[in-house]
Structure formats: C-alpha cells, structure tokens
C-alpha cells in the first residue's frame, strides 16, 4: 500500500516541486531546509566574523583605536553568541538535514513541517540580536556566557538577547527532536544502529545533548530576566541568591554545548577520512562507544569553568579528574582516525585536507584543554588569552574546518557540480596558515597574563597582538575564496558524477547526483557494513 491510494490530503504529496519564493518559505523538503540552514549559517559566519575583525582591529595596538570599551564588550559578546548559535549549530543542523535522510535511507526528516519552523525561527532570533546594537544601552555586553551580575544590569539589549536565546532554544530543541526521531525511526531496513554511519551516530547524540541542555539555558536566562525586571534575587546575595549559582546552571548547559559543537565534527571526519584513505573506519564500534561515553561524561565536568570561584578543594579535584577522563574517549577517536589513515591509499582532495587539518589542530585544542583542566594551572590561566586560544583551536580549527570538509565533500551530491579543486586547496592552505598565525600567539599572550575581553592592554603584549590581528584579517579575507568557489561552482562547475570520490561507499553515493528532490520515497532493502558502508541495495524509489 502506498500514500497515493490514500486520500485527497495524501495524494498531492511528494510530487510537486514548488517554485519561486514559496519553495523556501513554506518548505517541507529536507534538502531545501538543509540549504536554507547552510546559507543562513554562512551569513551568520560572515556577521560574526566581521565582529571578530572589529575586535582584532581594536587589539592591533595598545590604547583605544576604534571603539569605546562598551562597544568592544558588545562585540565580543555578540561575536560569541552569533558564532555559537547562529553559525556553528545551524550549520551542523543543516548538514544533518541534508545528509541524514540520504545516509540512512529515509524519505525526509520525521517531522518535515516542524523542520521548517526550526529553521525559520533562526532569522527572527538573529534579527533580535542585531537590533540590540541600536537600542538604548546597546547590545548585551556581559560576554556570551551572560554571567550575572553583569547580565542582571545593563540596558535592554540584554532583554532582547534573552528572548533571542529563548527562540534559538525552541528552534534547536525542535531540530534536535527531528534528528533523534529520524535516526531512531526512519532508518531503511538493514541500516541497523550498530552499522549506521558515524555521522548519524554523532548527530543522534548531539541532538540528545541539545534536548537535555537547551531547556536548562532557557531556564537560567529566564532567572536573569526576572532578576532584571521582577525583583527576584536568584543571583543576588542580598536576597539569599548567589551569582555563582548562575555559573553552575549556565555551565551545566555550557559544557555539553561544547560537545554539541564538536561531536558532529567527529562524525563528519569519520566519514571523510575512510573515503580518502580508501580504508574502512578503524574501530567503528569503539567510536560509537566513545561518542556515547562523551555524552554521559560531558554532564559531569561543568565546574572546570569555575575553578576560581572558591569552590571546595574536593570539588575542584572531582571536576579536574572527570575532565581529564574525557580525554580518554577523545583520544580513542584521534587514535582511530590516525589508524584509519595508516597504510591507506591516501589522496588529498580538499575535504581530506580539511579533515586532516581538523585532526591535527583539534588535538592541539584538546591538549590545551587538558592543561586547563588542571585546577592549579587553571587558576593562573582563567580568563586569559590562553583560554581564547584553546577554544578557538577547538571551534575554528575543529568545528569550522570539519564544516568546510563536509561542504566540499558533499557539494557534488548537493548541487550536481564539482567545486574548483584548485581554489579549494588554496582555501585550505590559506586558512591553515593564517588560522595558526592568528591563534597560536594567543597561547603566549595568555601564559604571559593578558586577560581576555578588554579593548586595551599593557605594552609588552603588543607584538603578538599585532601578529594575531594581521592573521585574523588574512584568515577572514581567505573565506571569500570559499564563497567565490561555492557561488561560481554552483553556476558554472563541471557536472559531478554520481560518485566523485573513489573510496566513498555510504548510501548517499548510491543514488543519482544531484540527489533527486525526493529520495527514498520507498525505503530500500540494505545490507550494511560498519560505518554505513553499503554492501548491497535493493529497491528504493526516487523522483
């Protein structure tokens, strides 16, 4: 039985491809919604990037050059919020939208209409954040963490930010429920949980983390809101509250959030490296367990962000050792990626370059994280540029590089065109070099004691800051290479074959290029190996 023999409501589904603006505004197609997510995220990446360049311009030399300190604080705050909630998270959700159904043999996302709401809530939230720059008092200036009591004071920009976070929360929770249900319920016969691609596993566990912690963030910013306007004292000791409580609740969300931005990257790299090493992923099962254990451990380490708040030594030790424990599953992953490449027949197309760059630089970021987890060391390094260096290695060279890897990798399947390999290689090497020139010196600045989130600094920090600022501008301009490559290739690129990568053998490469508007309308019968490798496919219907 199929839907066509159903009723009026059912019969016009899956047949028409809507045209014009309505296709995007009213979309229920996972590929269209995925495309919307990816372009939105790129726009936010540019906006957040411009703010970053504003920060780096100010820090090029000591003294105040361009901005008043208030605006500088607003720029650091909004840079963080826009990049985390506007660029990285939506980009991963967009990729999951595009690729998950293709990789597990589903006809679409489980809740296609809600999927569209998840996306269309993002532009309003972004708009609220941007509007906040122009309201009295300017945008939120308490840092992206919105620590009380900074956030319980200040102008209405903070209120707009709080409501923007509520909307972003609604969006990401719905998006996450969609991903979880799609993975759990819409896998094609034969695509079992312990065979499905690591990207599906990573998306599943990320989505679980989002559902678990975004409501906590919504709760804590609601407490900030009532402290601001309704006379409560959640974060005010005068009424029996405690500003440190804000940090506890925030980081209960915040640390899993780090993995929300890292696990999908692990998933992408676990698809790309086997393809270009032409070897199956080493230790697939251990990869699944490592990812799952990170999902559990990430709830038990939040106070490593708070070693300087005066918590008891036993608590410091607990959070220190628990944090170090996370290095074990992460180490398993890095080992597996390296072992996958070992004696592989490797080629170095752009996706592979970004994946290898990811493994190298993410490991550096992970190791500086282990250093920061040592409570005694962290007390020295808390709120210095060492922390800034650490999390930019994880988020730029980690999350962002993996996103570039993914976009280059799946670009042919999405668009039916090949990107320019020459420009892709240029983009990689350019980004790699300037990324390190930007962020590596920040380790030295932090060790020397330069605090973060200030527009001015002592003279001895000048040289490294100048280097970092030059690096940041060059890195930023380099992203125009990527933009040009994408736009040009979508229009004039060479037609892509069904399987442009010799070693690619997951399900999305078993269907036509570009992927048909409606794929797997009827689920295929599959025989699947580890990491979603398709051994045999029968049936499946597309149009």
């Amino acid at each position, binding site marked *: *039985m199929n*839907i066509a023999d*159903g*009723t*009026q*409501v*059912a019969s*016009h*589904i899956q047949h028409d491809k*809507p045209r014009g603006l309505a296709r995007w*505004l*009213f979309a*229920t197609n996972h590929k269209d919604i995925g495309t919307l997510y990816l372009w939105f995220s790129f726009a936010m990446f540019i906006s957040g990037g411009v703010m970053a360049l504003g920060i780096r311009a100010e820090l090029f030399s000591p003294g105040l050059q361009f901005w008043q300190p208030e605006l500088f604080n607003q720029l650091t705050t909004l840079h963080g919020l826009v990049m985390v909630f506007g660029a990285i998270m939506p980009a991963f959700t967009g990729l999951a939208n595009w690729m998950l159904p293709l990789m597990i043999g*589903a*006809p*679409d996302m489980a809740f*296609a*209409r809600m999927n569209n*709401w998840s996306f*269309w*809530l993002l*532009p309003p939230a972004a*708009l*609220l954040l941007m509007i906040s720059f122009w309201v*009295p008092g300017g945008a939120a200036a308490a840092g992206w963490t919105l620590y009380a009591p900074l956030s319980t004071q200040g102008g*209405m920009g903070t*209120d*707009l930010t709080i*409501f923007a976070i*509520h*909307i972003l929360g*609604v969006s990401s*929770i719905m998006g996450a*429920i969609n991903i979880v*249900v799609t993975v*759990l319920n*819409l896998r094609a016969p034969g695509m079992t949980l312990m065979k499905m691609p690591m990207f599906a596993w990573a998306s599943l566990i990320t989505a679980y983390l989002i559902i*678990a912690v*975004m*409501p*906590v963030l*919504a*709760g804590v910013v609601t*407490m900030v809101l009532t402290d*601001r*306007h309704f006379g*409560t*004292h*959640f974060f*005010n000791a005068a009424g*029996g*509250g*405690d500003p440190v*409580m804000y940090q*506890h*609740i925030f980081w209960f969300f915040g640390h899993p959030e780090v993995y929300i931005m890292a696990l999908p990257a692990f998933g992408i790299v676990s698809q790309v490296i086997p393809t270009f090493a032409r070897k199956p992923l080493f230790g697939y099962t251990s990869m699944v367990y490592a990812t799952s254990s990170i999902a559990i451990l990430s709830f038990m380490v939040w106070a490593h962000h708070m070693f300087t708040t005066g918590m008891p030594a036993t608590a410091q030790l607990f959070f220190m050792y628990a944090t170090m424990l996370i290095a074990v599953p992460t180490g398993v992953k890095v080992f597996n990626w390296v072992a996958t490449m070992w004696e592989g027949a490797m080629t170095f197309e752009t996706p592979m370059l970004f994946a290898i760059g990811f493994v190298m630089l993410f490991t550096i970021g992970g190791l500086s994280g282990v250093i920061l987890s040592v409570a005694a060391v962290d007390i020295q390094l808390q709120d210095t540029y060492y922390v800034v260096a650490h999390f930019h290695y994880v988020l730029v060279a980690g999350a962002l590089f993996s996103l570039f890897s993914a976009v280059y990798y799946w670009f042919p399947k999405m668009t039916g065109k090949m990107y320019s390999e020459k420009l892709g290689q240029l983009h990689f090497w350019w980004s790699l070099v300037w990324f390190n020139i930007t962020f590596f010196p920040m380790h030295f600045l932090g060790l020397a004691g330069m605090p973060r989130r200030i527009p001015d600094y002592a003279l001895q920090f000048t040289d490294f800051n100048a280097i970092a600022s030059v690096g940041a501008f060059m890195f930023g301009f380099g992203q125009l290479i990527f933009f040009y490559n994408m736009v040009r290739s979508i229009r004039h690129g060479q037609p892509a074959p069904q399987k442009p990568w010799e070693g690619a053998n997951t399900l999305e490469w078993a269907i036509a290029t570009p992927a048909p508007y*409606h794929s797997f*309308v*009827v*689920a295929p019968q599959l025989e699947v190996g580890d990491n979603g490798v398709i051994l045999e496919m029968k049936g499946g219907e597309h149009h």
Partner: protein
Amino acid sequence: MQGHGTAAGEESAAQQTRYFVPPPSRWPLVGAVALFCIGLGAAFALNGMLLGPLSLGAGVAILVWMLVGWFRDVIRESRAGSYRAREDMSFRWGMGWFIFSEVMFFAAFFGALYYVRVIALPELGDETHKLLWPDFNPAWPLQTAPGIDAVYQAMGAWGLPAINTAILLSSGGTLTWAHWGMIEGKRSQLAWGLGITVLLGMLFLSLQAYEYHHALSELGLSFASGAYGMTFYMMTGFHGMHVLVGTLILAVIWVRVLRGHFSEHNHFAFEAAAWYWHFVDVVWLLLFVFVYWL
C-alpha cells in the same frame, strides 16, 4: 490519531513502505513571525516602550492563529488516514523527547532551589559572612536579608496546596479511566472521564489563582520576597502555565471525542495529551514536597 479505515489498520510499521511527508505549509513561517513579535514586544514592554505591548499582543494573536491553523491541518491529515504505524511511532518518540526537554527545563529550577537552600544560604550564614551581615539568619523560609524589604509569611503545605494535590492526583485517575473507556470502546465513559479531567484542571487553576491572591494580599509574599518568594512563584508559576496548556490540550481532545474522532486502536493525540498531563502531575508532586512541604 484516527486510523486509515479499519481494513488497513493492522499494517505494521515494518510492512509500511512509504512515509507521510506533509505538503508545503505556511504555518511555520507564521509561527516564526509570531515569536519574533513576542520576543521584540516583550523586551520593549519590559523597558516601558509603547511599541512593546502592541508587538506582544500582535505576536500572541498571530501565534494563536498559527496554532489553530497548524493543528487543524494535522487533525485533517489524521482524519484522512495519512498517519499510519510508522508515523504513529514518530509521534510517540517525538512526544517522549519533548517531555524530556520539559523535564530538563524544570530541572534547572529545582537545581536552583537546591543550590539556594543547601549551598548558598548556609554559606551566607557562616562565620565569615557574619562579619558582613551580622543580622543575617539563614533559616528557610529566608526572612531577614538586606534585599527583602517587606515582612511575609510562607505558604503552608496542608491547606490549599494539599487540596490541589488531591485534585491533580484524582485528575490523573479520571484521565486513566477515560483512557480505559477509549480502549474498550466505551465512548460515554471516555467523554465523561475526559470532561471531568478538564474540570479538575480548571478547578486546580482557580484554586492556584486564589492561592496567589491570598499570598500577595494576606501573606505579603511576592516575587521579590527573597530566595523563598522567587523560587515559590517561579516554580509554581511555570507549573501553573503547564497545567493551563495541558487543560487546553485536553479540552481540544474532549471536543474531538464528542465529534467522534479516534478509535480503540488509533488515538495517539489522546495519549500524548495524557502523557503530558501525567508529567505535569509528577512535577506537582515534586513541587508539593520540595516547595510547600520541606
């Protein structure tokens, strides 16, 4: 949800080869506009700007329009038989995960209550802090603190709150009785059970409103009454909002029951509402113990 006619009703999810994907819909975009107006309006209203209430009101109106339209589409699709075993499974997973997200939302506030009572207050009352605030007494409910300017009385557990506990617990019972009616095809038991549940929900809300009135006017207990007042109103307030939403959902289901929707095997909308109601019920029990009683 209503089945695809009884003849095909037995098809299992594994046998089902196609999955329902809804046609393009304007409701998500309408909902996005609604939340934008609400977010903008709330922020402006809190800062005393004229645009605020206007935008907030418009946003709420648009949201109601969207919810009505969206659920109308869903009910039509359900009645038309678009949802079968596989879709039903998606709804079950989806509702379960949604309730999990709600659990975590309340967890943030229970965590705050725990932190304030077990960590923050004892610390504020310790020897070091005595030097700063000699008069501070870290008892619960917290009465004397520099931020609390009005005297208040705490809400006792064994008056109205105990009655409300009984009401909510029995509403869980009547709802289950209604569910049995649904499963056994006893439509009048179903309709009566559901109707009584809705009434109990409304009764709970009225008593809660009366309790707030009593607290504000006679006990002097407000949102600004320090650590006790803020956790009391925040937690019971968010719970009350959930009871309101749950009552509205059950009322819609009740109207659908009266119109002859649902069958013995196919009524997930009813079950989802019941899950939600039981979740709200459990939250209340925890509130009763930790907010009112202990």
